[in-house]
C-alpha cells in the first residue's frame, strides 16, 4: 500500500467507528476534529488533495469529513512554504 492508500484506510476506519453520532454530517464533524487533532500536517494535506481529485475510495462520512477538515484548517494556505519539501 502506498502512503495515500494507508491514509484512506485510516480515515475510513475512523469514520466507521464514529458513525454512531447519527447523521453523516455529525459523524463527519467528529472525524474532522479527530484528524485535526491527531494527524500530521502532511497527512492532512495529502488526504485533502486525494479528496479533491475525486476521493474514489473514501466512504461517505470520510468525504464529508475531509471537506470539513479543509474548512477547519484556516492555516491550510500557510502549510507548504514553511515545512515540507517532500
Amino acid at each position: 500500500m502506498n502512503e495515500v492508500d494507508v491514509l484512506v484506510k485510516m480515515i475510513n476506519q475512523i469514520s466507521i467507528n464514529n458513525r454512531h453520532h447519527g447523521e453523516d454530517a455529525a459523524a463527519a464533524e467528529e472525524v474532522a476534529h479527530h484528524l485535526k487533532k491527531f494527524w500530521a500536517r502532511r497527512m492532512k494535506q495529502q488526504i485533502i488533495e486525494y479528496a479533491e481529485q475525486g476521493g474514489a475510495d473514501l466512504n461517505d462520512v470520510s468525504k464529508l469529513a475531509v471537506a470539513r477538515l479543509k474548512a477547519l484548517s484556516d492555516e491550510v494556505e500557510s502549510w507548504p512554504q514553511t515545512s515540507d519539501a517532500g
Partner: protein
Amino acid sequence: MLNYFDPKQPDSGQPHNGFDPSLFERDLGTPARTSTKAVALTIDGFEISVPEGTSVMRAAALAGITVPKLCATDNMEAFGSCRLCAVEIEGRRGYPASCTTPVTEGMSVTTQNGKLAKLRRNIMELYISDHPLDCLTCPANGDCELQDMAGAVGLREVRYGYEGANHLDAKIDDSNPYFSFDPSKCIVCSRCVRACGEVQGTFALTIDGRGFGSMVSAGQNEPFMDSECVSCGACVQACPTSTLMEKSVIEEGVPEHSVVTTCAYCGVGCSFEAQMKGDKLIRMVPYKGGDANHGHSCVKGRFAFGYATHKDRIREPMIRDSIDQPWRAVSWEEALEFSAKRLKGIQETYGRDSVGGITSSRCTNEETYLVQKLIRAAFGNNNTDTCARVCHSPTGYGLKTTLGESAGTQTFDSVMKADAILVIGANPTDAHPVFASMMKRRLREGAELIVADPRRIDLLKTPHAEKGLHLALKPGTNVALVNALAHVVITEGLEDKAFVAERCDTEGYQKWRTFIQEARHAPEVSEAETGVPAALVRTAARRYATAGNGAIYYGLGVTEHSQGSTTVMAIANLAMATGNIGREGVGVNPLRGQNNVQGSCDMGSFPHELPGYQHVANTEVRERFESVWNAKLDDEPGLRIPNMFDAAVAGTFKGLYVQGEDIAQSDPNTQHVEAALSALDCLIVQDIFLNETAKFAHVLLPGATFLEKNGTFTNAERRINRVRRVMPPVAGKEDWEVTQALSNALGYPMNYSHPSEIMDEIAQLTPTFTGVNYQRLEELGSIQWPCNDDNPIGTPTMHGVDFPIGKGHFAITEYVATEERTNRRYPLLLTTGRILSQYNVGAQTRRTANSEWHEEDVLEIHPVDAEDRGLKDGDWLGIRSRVGHTVLRCRVSDRMAPGVVYTTFHHPGSGANVITTDNSDWATNCPEYKVTAVQVEKVSQPSDWQQRFQQFDEQQQRYLERADESEGMTIK
C-alpha cells in the same frame, strides 16, 4: 509513652507525609496491623501503644527491644515453630511465643531474664546439634540469622555431640541458575514454604516427611527447576541461613553497600536494593520500603541483571556511511558531529519535517523529556513518538475521553480492597508477576475473579482460589463482550444511579443508556460473535456489579486491537455505570508493559501532545514552552511511528533518532519496517546492544542501563520512583547526557548538570507535576502524580471528588468487527503474548540465564487443530498470514479454544511480527497484534524471511566485530 503510627502499613493505601527508611532496615518480626484501635502495654518496663492485633514481638521491636527469633519475619504471618521468641507475660502460665501472641490492654511483658535465657540456649543447642559448623567458609557468614541468634542467646557448647543421626550429608540442589538449595544447612523453620505461599502465591514448596525426617521439598520432591517454582526469590530472601542462597553471593561473598533503586523491567516498578561490592552488583534484593512491591520481586528484577555487564554491550560510539559497511569506532565528538551534520543535511534537502525521533519507554522520565524536547525544539517539528504507540496508546485516548486523564485510577494496594476482580486481556502472573502475587493474595481471601481472555491464563489456576469465571472470547470481540456486560448491568437494574447522577454527564449517559439497552447488545445475541455463553456473561456482569468493590485490570489484550480505544472507553463506561470509580478497591487499571511507559506518555512523547498531555495546537500552552525552551514550536501534530515508516518508504522521511527501542523487532509487519529503515539516510540508534534496529543504523550511540544512571521512572499506578546510579556508564555517558550532547552538536544548547534539573523544568511546565522534585522524592519515598498545590503529597486514588473534565463522559462504543477475518485460506486466529522469564523483545533477558526457562518461541495450538493437521509437539510449523510467513516449533495445548493459536515474540529469529499485519486501532494506530488470521502447516525448513534474517544478522555481527579493524576507512 511511645505512640506508634506506621505510615507504610502494606494495605493502608493512604498518602503519607514522610518516608522513614529506618523503618525498613529492621525486621520487626510480624506484619503490621491496620486497626485504628490502639492497645497499650508494658514491655520490659517500657510503655507502648500499638494497633490492635499486633504481636508482642512486633510491639517489642517498635519499642526498640529485639526478641530473638528464627521462624518469624515481618513479611509473613507468624508461625510459632522455633520457640526462640518465648517471653514471660504477667499473669500467664509458661512461656508464650511472642510472635503468635497478640497484645492485650495493660499486658506486662518480660523479654529477658535468666529462665528465658536458659530456655533459648537449650533451643539453639538443639538446632546447632544438626547444623554444620563451617561458619567461616559458609556463604552466609556475616549475613546469617542462625549465627546471629547463637550469638544473641550466648550459646557456648553443644552437649549432644554431632555423632548421632543428622542431615549434614543432604545433597545440594543446584538446578536453579540463580540460587542453590543446600538442605544440610536447613533448620526447617518453614519461612521458605510460607514465603512461596503467602508472598508469592505459587505454593511450590512444602515440608515433606515429619519429625526428624522433615525436609523442605520443591514440588513432588523434584529439583527446583522441574517444580512449579517461578524463581521469584521470595524463599531465598526469607531463608535465615545459607540453605537458599544466591549463587552470586556464594561466588563473590557478602555485599558491602547497597543503593535503593527502581527495576527497569515491567510497569510494576519494584523498588530494589542493589547490593554491591565496589562497583560490582552482587544481588538485587526487593526493598520492603517500596510502595509498589512491599519487598517482593520476580525472576526478572531479582535475578536477570547480568545483561548489564554482558560482553555484547556497545562500549563506544560507532558510525558508518551505509549499512553494507563495517562499523568504525569513533570518539563521542566525532559520532555526534557526524549525526548532526547528516540530520541538518537531510533537513536542508528534504525539509524540516523529514526527520524525527522515538523516545524510550525504558529510559527515565528526564531522558524521555529531553528527547522530545530535542525533536520539538532542535529538529523544529513534532515527529516524536514512543513505543506506547504499539502498546497503551488506546489507554491514553480512551481514558482521557471518558475520565479526563490518561492514566490508571488506583494504587496497586487498592486490589486488597477489591471484592470482584475483572481481568481483561492481561496475564498478570507472567507480565506483572509482583502485582499478580498481591492479586492472588486477595483472591485467596475470597475476592471473586472474572477473566476475559482467549487463553486460560495462570491466574485462573491460583491455588486456593480456583473458582474464577473464564470468558474465553474470540480474539477481536472485546467491544462486543464489554458491551454485553454493560447491557446486563443496565437492563437488570444493577447500575449505581446515585453515582451516575452526581458524577457523570447526564446527556451523554442517557444517550449511552439508550444505546446499550438495545437488544443487539444482549449476551444472547453477542454470543454468536464472542463465543462466550450468554449465561456466563450474565453471571460475570452480576458479580462485578454487585460484589461491592469491582475493580477492572486490563492489558494489551484490550489495547492491541482495531478497536483498542473503543474497548478502553467501554471499560470506563462499565466502571462509571456501576459506581466503581473514585475510591479504594475499585477503578480502571491499565497494566503497563514497560517500566516507564506511563512516564514516556506523561513526558510528551506523542506527536500531538507536549508534556502533561497538553495539545500542541493550544497557543497558550505552546507559548509557555516556547518561552522556557527559547524555541519556536510547530502547532501541528507530527508523525506517528507507522506514519514515519510510510513516509520513509515514500521517500519524504529520511532521518530518525531512536533511543532505547527496537522497532525492527517489536513493531508489526517486519518486512514493511525493514523497508522503511533501509530507506533512511540517517538512522541514529542509542541502545545498550546491537539490537535489530541498530543493524539498519548509520550511527550507534552506546546507551546506559538503569544501573548506570540517575533519574525517575513512573509505574502503572502513576508512581514516580527514583532510579539511582550504582555503577558508571560503560561508555561514560548517561543517556540524557548523550541527547544533550547531540542537541548541542545540532546548535540547540542544553546545559543540565544533573537529571534533577531536568525534573525541575518538567515541574515548571507540567501542571500535574508542579510539586515534584528530587528533594520531595527523598522525603516521600515516591510520589503518585498529580502532585501540585491541590495534591501536595500526590494522588494515590484518582477521581475521588470529580473528574479532570468535571463530569465523567459515557462514550458510545459501537462494535465494529476487525477487517482481519478468518477464511478457508487463513482459518486460524493468531494471538500473541509474553511469558514470565523473558521480557518483551528479550534483548536483556535473552542475555541472562532466564533463557533456561524459555529458549525459543513456540506456537501453541489446540489438540483438535493439531490433529486435523497431523501435528505433534516439537514439529516445525510454517505459519502463514496475509503479509508474511515464519516457522516456529509446535506445542499442543488446550489453553486456547480451538481455532486460536498463540505465540510469544521474545526472540528476533522467530519472526512473530513477520506475520502480524499493519491493521491498527482506529483512534491511535496501535497495531492489532492480537488478531492475525493464519494457516499452519508442517514444514521442514525455516521460512525465506528467517533465512534472510540469519544471513543479515551474521553479516551485521561481523561488521560490529570488524569495527576496530577498519580505522583507515574514510567516512564522508
